[in-house]
């Protein structure tokens, strides 16, 4: 298998999965390449992401990158969260096979889309 054990762990035991009832920033994005979808719930207070949850219907790489990105942005300032790149997410999970690089774009898109109404 071309996936790292860390990626498989995030796929099998996703962190931050679920919905956030008191979220004040929500985004739903679809991957135009393969049809995967991700929904992201954020709770933003004082220019920081104080909590986050996700749901993803997609492949193992899409689920793992969604989970990792959701976990990593909790506690970040909004400018930091907006600056998270797909490469950063993929690298943190031990890299993705070339044909799966498009998967990590789902999470970085969702973060920016959810925060677009915040200054």
């Amino acid at each position, binding site marked *: 298998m071309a996936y790292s054990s860390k990626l498989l762990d995030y796929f099998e035991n996703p962190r931050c*999965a679920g919905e956030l009832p008191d979220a004040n920033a929500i985004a739903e994005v679809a991957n135009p390449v393969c049809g995967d*979808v991700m929904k992201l719930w954020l709770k933003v207070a004082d220019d920081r992401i104080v909590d986050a949850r996700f749901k993803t*219907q997609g*492949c193992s790489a899409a689920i793992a990158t969604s989970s990792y990105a959701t976990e990593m942005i909790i506690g970040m300032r909004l400018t930091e969260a907006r600056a998270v790149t797909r490469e950063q997410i993929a690298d943190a999970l031990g890299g993705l096979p070339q044909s*799966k690089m498009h998967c990590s774009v789902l999470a970085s898109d969702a973060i920016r889309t959810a925060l677009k109404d915040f200054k």
Partner: protein
Amino acid sequence: MRPEVSAAMIPIFSGDFGNPSSIHWFGQQAKSLLDEARQQVARLIRAESSEIVFVSGGTEADNLAIRGIAETQKAKGRHIITSRIEHHAVLHTCKDLEKQGWEITWLNVSPDGQVDPEDVRRALRPDTVLITIMHANNEIGSIQPIEEIGTIAAQADVYFHSDGVQSTGKIPVDVKKLQVDLYSISAHKIHGPKGVGALYVRKGTTLKPLMTGGGHERNRRSGTENVAGIVGFGRAAQLAREGLESEMEHVRQLRDRLESGLKARIPSIHINAESAPRLPNTSNIMVDFAEGEGLVISLDLKGIAVSTGSACSSGSLEPSHVLTAIGKTPDEAHGSLRFSLNAMNTAEDVDDVLEVLPGIVERLRELSPYYKRA
């Protein structure tokens, strides 16, 4: 591979045999092994030995059939009839000819994955030189009405090729009854070695070879034969023929156990080509609110190997062309899983799937933003 197959091949590697084209004794010994294998393969599809051309596999067999006929017939016409659900070896070969100026009619199939023979008849033109329709589909298992199409082709005096890679060894094949002129088979699909296959070429069929050289295989395929591979292929063909009925009944029972078990345990799943005549070993299911690659990886982590038609798992990032052709949307194809069973599988293997898959599906569905538990 079956153990009997590797047992038949091992002595060949130890160097006891020569070049089948050589006239010295050990070359002749190799030749007699080839002759025996040729007879074993011929018997499996009820052909004559002289009608079997050994090649490197199903892909080469398809290429040799289609390009070989195209080259010899292009003065008569440049129109080919095929279907939208062919294996890539046929699909991409026809697309390549299309780029070279050939006209290809791509026949649609029914929602159960079957070509209508009447569509073949309607597609015939004075310049049609070849019909190529697979015997059984590799993804969903649907069996095509080859005998009816064979009759239409014979009446119209048009060459007829069928890719029999999936069907051979799984259902009875009689090339004379099917009225095919060319029929592709692959060794590894019948528990033989990889890298070897054969093209049945009906006696009297003129075919331009892809390979030129020393004129091996009756001038149809130059290049020293892969003796070990062919011997393994022959043995596998013999075993497939002897075990066809009992083994395929066993496989059919396992498949039915798998499908009824999954339907009972997992809501919102669909079985593709369920009501079509279907190969006994193939089961293609679609799972709503879960993605195929994730299902494959989860099963793989439990030691169960299956495949998917999801765009997420294909290099091209396109959903399966077969699922698209039977009318499935990319979303539906997204959750497809293909199980291929074989005679060596057991009821315990099926029960392992029945035990782990419902939990895997439930877990992935819980992660889906669209899934609402009933």
